[in-house]
């Protein structure tokens, strides 16, 4: 079990390093970087490579934003397998990405209890 933590750390760290390189060397804004990584996650899942990565690194693969592209693609492909072409469209949110729903709910709650503050430390 302990090794899973080590792998989660390393794989998660490496995905973040890819993001940092996109920002620093590629001169991308955070929004461009995250979008690129999401597309990357979707493509990796299309090639059947993302699930093995999750099996290997656990949260190291599910916590980075790439897993968002993975879960959407996974849903679409699972439905397409069952229901054909229509499934591609309907299956997307079948395997729900809890990231979105959590972000919406907590965003709403956060907006009610916090105020923006221009502090620096």
């Amino acid at each position, binding site marked *: 079990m302990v090794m899973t933590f080590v792998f989660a750390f390393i794989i998660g760290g490496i995905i*973040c*390093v890819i993001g940092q390189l996109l920002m620093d060397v590629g001169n991308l804004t955070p929004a461009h970087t*995250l979008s690129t990584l999401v597309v990357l996650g979707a493509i990796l899942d299309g090639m059947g490579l993302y699930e093995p990565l999750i099996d290997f690194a656990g949260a190291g693969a599910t916590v980075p934003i790439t897993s968002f592209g993975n879960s959407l693609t996974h849903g679409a492909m699972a439905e397409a397998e069952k229901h054909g072409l229509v499934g591609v469209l309907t299956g997307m949110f079948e395997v729900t990405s809890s990231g979105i729903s959590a972000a919406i709910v907590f965003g709403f709650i956060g907006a009610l209890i916090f105020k923006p*503050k221009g502090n620096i430390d």
Partner: protein
Amino acid sequence: MEKEQYQQLEQNVTPKPPYLKNVAKAFFVGGFICAIGQAVSLFYMIFFNFTEATAGNPTVATMVFFAMILTGLGLYKRIGQFAGAGSAVPVTGFGNAVISAAIEHRSEGVVLGVGGNLFKLAGSVVLFGVVSAFFVALIKYILVTIGVVSW
């Protein structure tokens, strides 16, 4: 002074980002966040009925909850300044983008402000996630139909 000449001067004066330092910081902070995610996963597996396959969802939701607290207290932007992609790439960064926009636009009301601006920053991630998922699944469907690969 000509434009080209000035651009030359600007290139000389402007410091390059400290690539190595930034990469190291992103690696360690990003890795650390994922390790916390692993701990949360383990927590859900041991105390609740989640398997390795299903623990991902509650883990992600919990991480976003942590992001809400840190964002609200103004700590996430400080982590972000230090870690760069290390805190932007994990799902907590996605949460931070949504939650910070929500908090920011609260002053314009819950409907027009929070509702209208919630995905101001994170919207592109949702867009590209869904669109790329659509095309990847479509391509795979076509490949399976013509018999190149199987599901």
